C-alpha cells in the first residue's frame, strides 16, 4: 500500500472515525464525503463510532494471501456496529468460538505490513465482548 493511502486511513482504522449527515442523521463507515440520500443538501461531519457491535455473518479463512498466511485459520466477519453501520473486520478468536449474533468489542492490532522493511499498518480488529482488557 502506498504510504499516503495508509496515512489517510489512520483515523478510520485506529479509531473508527466515520461520518454523519446532519441533514438526515445517516451514519457512514467508512467515511463518505457526500450523503448518498441527501446529495447536495447533506451536511457531512466527522463521527467516532464506539466499536462495539455484533457479528452479522462470518467466514473462516484457511487459504490466505502471502501477507496473512501465518495467521490462518482466522475469522473474518461483517460486524454491525451498535450505531448502525456495518464493516468487515477480523475477529480475534478461535474459529469454533465465532457465532452469528456474537457481541464484539474493538482491539488495536497489527493489520499488516509492507514486508520487513516497509511500513506497518495498525488498526481495529474485534474480540468477543466478554474478554477482559
Amino acid at each position, binding site marked *: 500500500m502506498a504510504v499516503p493511502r495508509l496515512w489517510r486511513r489512520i483515523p478510520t482504522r485506529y479509531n473508527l472515525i466515520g461520518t454523519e449527515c446532519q441533514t438526515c442523521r445517516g451514519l457512514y463507515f467508512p467515511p463518505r464525503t457526500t450523503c448518498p440520500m441527501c446529495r447536495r443538501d447533506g451536511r457531512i461531519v466527522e463521527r467516532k463510532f464506539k466499536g462495539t457491535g455484533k457479528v452479522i455473518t462470518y467466514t473462516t479463512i484457511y487459504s490466505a494471501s502471502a501477507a496473512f498466511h501465518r*495467521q490462518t485459520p482466522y475469522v473474518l466477519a461483517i460486524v454491525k456496529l451498535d450505531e448502525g453501520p456495518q464493516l468487515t473486520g477480523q475477529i*480475534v478468536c478461535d474459529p469454533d468460538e465465532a457465532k452469528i449474533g456474537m457481541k464484539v468489542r474493538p*482491539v488495536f492490532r497489527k493489520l499488516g505490513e509492507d514486508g520487513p522493511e516497509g511500513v506497518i499498518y495498525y488498526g481495529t480488529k474485534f474480540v468477543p465482548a466478554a474478554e477482559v482488557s
Partner: protein
Amino acid sequence: MIGITSYGAYIPRYRIKVEEIARVWGNDPEHIKKGLLMYEKSVPDLDEDTATIAVEAARNAVYRCNIDPKEIGAIYVGSESHPYAVKPTATIVAEAIRATPELTAADFEFACKAGSAAIQTCMGEVAMGAIKYGMAIGADVSQGAPGDALEYTAAAGGAAYIIGKKNLIAEIEDTFSFTTDTPDFWRREGESYPMHGGRFTGEPAYFKHTISATKGIMKKVSTKPSDYDYVVFHQPNGKFPLRVAKTLGFSEEQIGPGLIVPRLGNTYSGSSLMGLAAILDQAKPGARILMTSFGSGAGSDAFSMTVTDGIEKIRDKAPTIAELLKNPKYIDYALYAKHKGKIAV
C-alpha cells in the same frame, strides 16, 4: 504535588509454561521453577507488538480517569522492542488515543527501566508547567534467543501512567536514580536477540543498582522500610526482587502484592510498572508505596509515593492486573516459536 492521575495495563492472553520450554531444551523444569520462581509467561498474539500493547494500556489509563486525551501534552513510550528502529511508537499511541496533534512525543530506551525514566520526564514537564498531563508507558514484547535462559522469563505486556498535578490517585513525593555504565545486557543494532552477562547480571548489576536507588530514595525522603505498605522492584524473575526485599528489610507482605512475575514473566520496560499497577489495584488511600526499576545493568529509578482518596473513584473503571491474567490460552513451544517469529519462512 505531582503524582499519578491514572494508570492502565495490558497483557496478551497467550501463555507458555516453564515445563514446555524445559521439555524442548532438555532442562529440569523443577530446577528452573525453584531457581527463578517462575511458572509461566505471557506471549503476544501474531498481530500484537509493543505498539499495540502500548495502545491498549494507554486506552485503559484514559478510560480509567475519563480525562480528555487532548489535555495530555506529552507521551513517552519506553521499550527495548519498538516495532521500528526509526519511527516512534509514541506517535502511534498519541493518534490511537486521540491526543494529537498538540503534544510532544518520543520513544525511550533503557532496557527494562525506560518506562520509569518516562515517568520522571513527565514529572519534570508537569512541574515546570509546560504540560497539564503527561503519559509514560513501559511496554515490551521481549525476546530471548532460543535455548537462552531468558526464554523462561522474556514476556509481553505493558502499563501506562498519566502523570499530573490534578485528580491524583497517588502523590509522588520524590524520585531518585542510580546510574553507571555496567554492560550486563545489550542488543546491537540489527540483532534479533539480546546478549547478557550471565551470572555477572546479579551482584554488580541488578542488586547494586536496585539496592542503591532504593536506599537513595529512602534517604532523600527520610523514610525506612517499615514506613511503606508496599514495595515493588524490577522483576526479571521471582527470586531477585525477593532477595532485594530481604536485604533491605522489607517483608514478604510488603512485596507480595506487586510480585506478579511468576505467572506473567518479565515484561521488561513494563515490569516494575505492572507490579505498581497490581498494587494500585488493591491499595487503600494513605498507603505508601516504594517502587524501584532497573534496566540494562546500568540504572535504577526509585519513587516514593502515597495513595490518595482518588483511587477508590477510578480503580474499577478499567481491568485490574488480576483480571488481565485470567483465562490464559496455553500454547506449546512450536506455536510460541511461531508467535514470536522464531521460525523463518
